[in-house]
């Protein structure tokens, strides 16, 4: 395999996570399709690094592979290619894609995921207490008598207060944003060192969201947690993440310091994304988004630039050449575009 340049942030420190050429394809076989060897290229050879204590943002089009990437990084799914090296400083870096048994259990204690949809991810037959206490129990991380206390404090921290009124309810007795906070509490309670946060605050109003963001940040500082922070809310990414990657159809198309990417986007997709951010003012008008409609399809994409069919500045060179590699551009960020 070729050596991939993954854009280290700090020289000299070993990253917590190093993703190399990660790939996940889902085979497609159904009566709707005559093609027999079709597959969804959900994650299509991506590489990046995540430093200890860093929040790394992942943004991009709906369906571009963000959740799949997150699931691969905490080993809830197996990749069809590539590696994820995990190095928490205790012993040598391990490729988590090959972990088994006791090793996998140890890894699970260190890596948690906050799932995107709190309606699907909470077990309907478990009380909030049982749900949030579960990782403590599975990992034997807290004496049984102290669990109630610890869960209560965690609920309080995510704004489910007073905790006594939530502990023995079931998920269906909570609102969307309340469930979302239960999911956050469950992931953070065992003080992991790596958290994939998949749209963790998408159903929260600004005030509660700010509280949760502050909590996640202060835990990061106190415990050195690293986050892979998946979000559609670019303002949230700006507040939470030092670096950010923009995905499009399974590929990272732009990656760099959050301020650089958001203030001076270089890839045409990133530029379009920023132009589409709605403005909280009913009298404001926004310039129309410049990219063509078209539906992005991850089913057997042609080898050329993934953005070609919708790109406003595409030319014949883009059509006849493979998907461009990420290269450092002025401004410092890496961009995958022949014309940026």
């Amino acid at each position: 395999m070729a050596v991939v340049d993954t854009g280290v942030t700090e020289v000299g420190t070993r990253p917590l996570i190093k993703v190399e050429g990660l790939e996940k394809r889902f085979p497609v076989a159904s009566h709707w399709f005559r093609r027999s060897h079709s597959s969804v290229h959900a994650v299509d050879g991506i590489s990046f690094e995540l430093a200890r204590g860093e929040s790394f943002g992942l943004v991009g089009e709906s369906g571009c592979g963000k959740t799949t990437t997150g699931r691969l990084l905490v080993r809830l799914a197996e990749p069809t290619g590539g590696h994820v090296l995990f190095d928490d400083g205790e012993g040598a870096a391990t490729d988590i894609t090959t972990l088994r048994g006791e090793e996998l259990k140890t890894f699970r204690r260190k890596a948690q995921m906050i799932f995107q949809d709190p309606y699907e991810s909470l077990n309907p037959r478990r009380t909030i207490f049982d749900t949030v206490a579960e990782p403590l129990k599975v990992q034997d991380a807290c004496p049984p008598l102290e669990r109630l206390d610890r869960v209560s404090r965690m609920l309080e921290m995510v704004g489910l207060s007073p905790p006594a009124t939530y502990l023995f309810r079931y998920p269906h007795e909570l609102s969307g944003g309340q469930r979302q906070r239960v999911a956050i509490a469950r992931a953070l309670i065992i003080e992991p060192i790596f958290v994939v946060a998949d749209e963790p605050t998408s159903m929260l109003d600004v005030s509660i969201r700010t509280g949760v963001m502050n909590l996640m940040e202060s835990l990061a500082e106190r415990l050195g947690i690293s986050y892979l922070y998946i979000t559609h809310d670019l303002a949230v990414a700006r507040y939470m993440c030092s670096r950010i990657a923009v995905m499009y159809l399974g590929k990272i198309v732009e990656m760099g310091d959050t301020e650089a990417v958001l203030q001076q986007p270089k890839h045409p997709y990133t530029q379009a994304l920023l132009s589409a951010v709605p403005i909280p003012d009913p009298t404001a008008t926004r310039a129309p988004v410049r990219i063509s409609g078209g539906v992005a399809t991850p089913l057997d994409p042609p080898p050329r630039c993934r953005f070609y069919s919708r790109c406003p500045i595409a030319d014949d060179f883009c059509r006849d050449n493979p998907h461009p590699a990420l290269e450092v551009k002025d401004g410092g960020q890496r961009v995958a575009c022949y014309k940026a």
Partner: protein
Amino acid sequence: MNGQSTSAPVLRIEDLGMYYGTRSGDVKAVDGVSFAVGRGESVGLVGESGCGKSSIAMTLLKLLPENGRIVGGRIVLDGTDLAPLSEDQMRTHRWNRIAMVFQAAMNSFNPVYTVGDQIIEALETHIETSPDVSMERVRELFELVSLDPGFIGRYPHEYSGGMKQRAGIAMALACEPDLLIADEPTTALDVIVQDRILKELRDVQQALNMSLIYISHDMAVIAEVSHTVGVMYAGRIVEWGDTVDIFQNPMHPYTQTLMSAFPSVTGPKHELAMLGGEPPNLLNPPTGCRFHPRCPYATDVCKTEEPPTVEGSDTHWAACWHPLEA
């Protein structure tokens, strides 16, 4: 957004109450709510997490859990009060007259059937149609919500979060309802897809003269989609008015906090404000004005007496003892 029609309302809710019975007492999730939605009008419904927005939506469709019960009031849809209707009678209204995009995207779909089959079934149950026409309609709907028609024959678990959400929107629009309730329909969508869907929604709305109740925590989206905004706090509507008025001249102190700090993507990076104090307990809501424990303007009267409804204009009111000056 302006230009809604002002004809007789499609929906009128009068003093609606819906409580959830629990071991510790009743959770008063909807407590004396009244408002009207005109034909072709878009109403944005906002408020803190847990204040009762989804509860209002589920009450309107009468899709309540076992412990939820309507304790009073009327839900008048085009002259018919839905509140006393039986489940059988309700079925004739749901989906073709009043449809919903659920906050729980999975509630729209059964995991064991393909998404396409489920939309076709909805079409065939509610409108007379042939298989070819239905299939054509499903393709149209997929394109409307920017979904690859290649996914029509795929199962819900093969969809990403945002794809499921879009499929839910397609499903809700399938039977061309008179009133669409969309509960946080774009939380899993990137801003480009969201932008396209909101445009399509506006077009459909105009073409069908459909009314819309749009629930969201995203004030920027509310600013784009709604003619009118209702602000909820602790089971009640505390302010109601034209979108521009609500954004520019909020009367209720709670609305003011909602409007105070929008995190910005390109502007200066400022400290984000937080509303202090505890969220209200709906088992036992505060007396007087429910916002009083957290309100910077609260006086003694606020603690004991229900606030009066004060009109700022014909189309703008708030429930407050000391409304803010415009």
